[in-house]
C-alpha cells in the first residue's frame, strides 16, 4: 500500500498539485534553467534560496521530509565536488594537490548543483509523475509512449512493495546471513520480481479487456487551476533573478 517513495508522497500531498502544469512548469523549469545558466554567485545562490523558500513555504514539504529526500543527492554532489577540488598529476610520481583553480571550480560547482537540485525538487515535490506525463502528451509525445510510461509508474508501486516484502521474508529466514546466502537470496528475489511483473501485466490485460480496452489507455485529465497572476509573478521573479545575476559584476 505504501511503497514509501518520499518524493512521490510529497507530490501527491502538496497544495500545489491542483495548479496547472503550465504555471508550475514555467516557474520550476525556469528556476532550474537559471541555476545552470547563470553564474553560481549570485544567480545559483539566489535560485537555491528561492527554491528552499518555495519548498518549505507553499509547496509544504517540511524540513524533515526535505532532509530525507535530499541526503542522497547531497552525498553524491559532495563526492563529485571533492573529486573536482583535488588535482592529480603523475609526471613525477602520483601527486595529489589542492590548487586555487580547483577550489574555485569546486565551489562554483557545489553552488550550481545544490541550486539545480533544489529547483528540481520544486517540480518533483509539487507535481505527481502522472501529471508530468500528461504534460508530455500535450507536447505531442506519442500516446503509446505516454501510456507505457504511465503503466511503468503504476506497476512500480506494487513491485516496490513486493520487493520489500520479499526482502523482509528472506531476512526473517536468515537470507542475508553471509555472502553466499545474500547472493542466493538476491537472485531468487530478482527472479521472483521478474515473474511477478510479468504475471501482473497479464492479469491487468485481462481485467482491462472487460472495461473495453482495445488499443489505447485513454483517461480523462482532472481539472487543474490556471492562474495568470501566478504565471506573471513567476516570470517577474525569473527576470529579477536573471537581471540581478547579470548585473552583479557591474554593480559590485
Amino acid at each position: 500500500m505504501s511503497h514509501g517513495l518520499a518524493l512521490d508522497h510529497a507530490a501527491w500531498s502538496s497544495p500545489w498539485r491542483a495548479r496547472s502544469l503550465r504555471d508550475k512548469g514555467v516557474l520550476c523549469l525556469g528556476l532550474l534553467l537559471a541555476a545552470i545558466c547563470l553564474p553560481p554567485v549570485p544567480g545559483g545562490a539566489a535560485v537555491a534560496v528561492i527554491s528552499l523558500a518555495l519548498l518549505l513555504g507553499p509547496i509544504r514539504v517540511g524540513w524533515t521530509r526535505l532532509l530525507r529526500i535530499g541526503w542522497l543527492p547531497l552525498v553524491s554532489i559532495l563526492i563529485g565536488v571533492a573529486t573536482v577540488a583535488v588535482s592529480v598529476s603523475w609526471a613525477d610520481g602520483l601527486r595529489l594537490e589542492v590548487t586555487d583553480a580547483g577550489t574555485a571550480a569546486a565551489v562554483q560547482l557545489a553552488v550550481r548543483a545544490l541550486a539545480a537540485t533544489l529547483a528540481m525538487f520544486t517540480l518533483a515535490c509539487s507535481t505527481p509523475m502522472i501529471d508530468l506525463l500528461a504534460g508530455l502528451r500535450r507536447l505531442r509525445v506519442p500516446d503509446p509512449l505516454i501510456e507505457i510510461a504511465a503503466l511503468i509508474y503504476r506497476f512500480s508501486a506494487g513491485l516496490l512493495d513486493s520487493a520489500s516484502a520479499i526482502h523482509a521474508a528472506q531476512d526473517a529466514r536468515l537470507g542475508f546471513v553471509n555472502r553466499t546466502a545474500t547472493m542466493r537470496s538476491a537472485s531468487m528475489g530478482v527472479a521472483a520480481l521478474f515473474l511477478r511483473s510479468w504475471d501482473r501485466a497479464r492479469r491487468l490485460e485481462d481485467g482491462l479487456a472487460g472495461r473495453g480496452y482495445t488499443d489505447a489507455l485513454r483517461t480523462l485529465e482532472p481539472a487543474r487551476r490556471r492562474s495568470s497572476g501566478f504565471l506573471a509573478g513567476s516570470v517577474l521573479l525569473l527576470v529579477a533573478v536573471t537581471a540581478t545575476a547579470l548585473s552583479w559584476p557591474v554593480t559590485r
Partner: protein
Amino acid sequence: MSHRQLSAHGLSVRFGERTVLADAELSVPRGGRLALLGANGSGKTTLLRTLSGAVRPSAGRVQVDGVDLDYGRAGLRAHRQVVQLVAQNPDDQLFAADVFRDVSFGPLNLGLTEVEVRARVDRALAVLSIEDLAERPIHELSFGQRKRVAIAGALAMEPCVLLLDEPTAGLDPQGVDEMVAALDALLAADTTVVIATHEVDFALWWADSVAVLRDGRLSCGSGPELLGDPEVVASARLRRPIVLQVAAALGLAPSGITEVSSLVAALSPHLVRKL
C-alpha cells in the same frame, strides 16, 4: 438503467481436460441480490467470466433478454454495457495513477463526450461514496478503498447487471459494512447485483436468492433452504451458516432464518421465559 434479464442455459466450460462447468442453468433475478456460492476452485470465477463474455463456453449459451450473446467485436461491446465484472483482486483492474483517471477509462472507451464521461465518473463515485478519493493516488489507498474504486470503474459503464467476485474477501467488519452500503446503493440505482463468495454467513444474510455450485452444476433456490441442507453444503465443500447450525441443533426448521434477529424471533416462542 433498466433491468435486463441475464441468463445461462446448458453452460459447459472446459479448459483442456478439465471440466469447470457442466450444463449449468442460471437465471439472474432482475433487480435482485443473487449470491453464487461455491468453494475455491469450484468454478465461480469462471462462471462470472462466462456471463461477462470474457470466456466463451464450450457448449450452451449466455442470453440477455432471451437473445444469445454474440461473440463478435460489436456483440461483446454491447454486452459489456449490459454486464460488468469486478475481479476479486482490485489490482487486476486498476491501471491508472489516480481514482478519477481510472474510473474515466471505461466510459471513454464507449466513445462518450468529455462532459458525459465526467458526469458518469461523478455518479459512480457518488454511488460508492468515494467522491473524496477522486484525486488520490491508487497506490496509497487501502485494500477496501481499492475494491470500491474497482467497482466504481465497472459502474461507470452503467451496466444493468454487476457481477462481483468475492467482494467481501479480505475486508474487516467495517469494510464489509461499507461494501454492503455500496451494494445497497447499486441496487437502489436499479442495478442487478450478483456476488460470488464462499462466505456462507454473509451470503445467507445478504442475498434474496442463492445459487450453489457443485461439480460444475448449479442449484438455485432460497438461502435458508439450500444452505440449511447438510447434503448440499457438504457436496459443495461449504459449511452451514452459523445461525442455521444453531437452528438445526435446536430442531428448528431453517426457513426464514437468515440472521441473528430472525433466529432469535424463531426461537423466542420456545423459551421458558425471556431470560
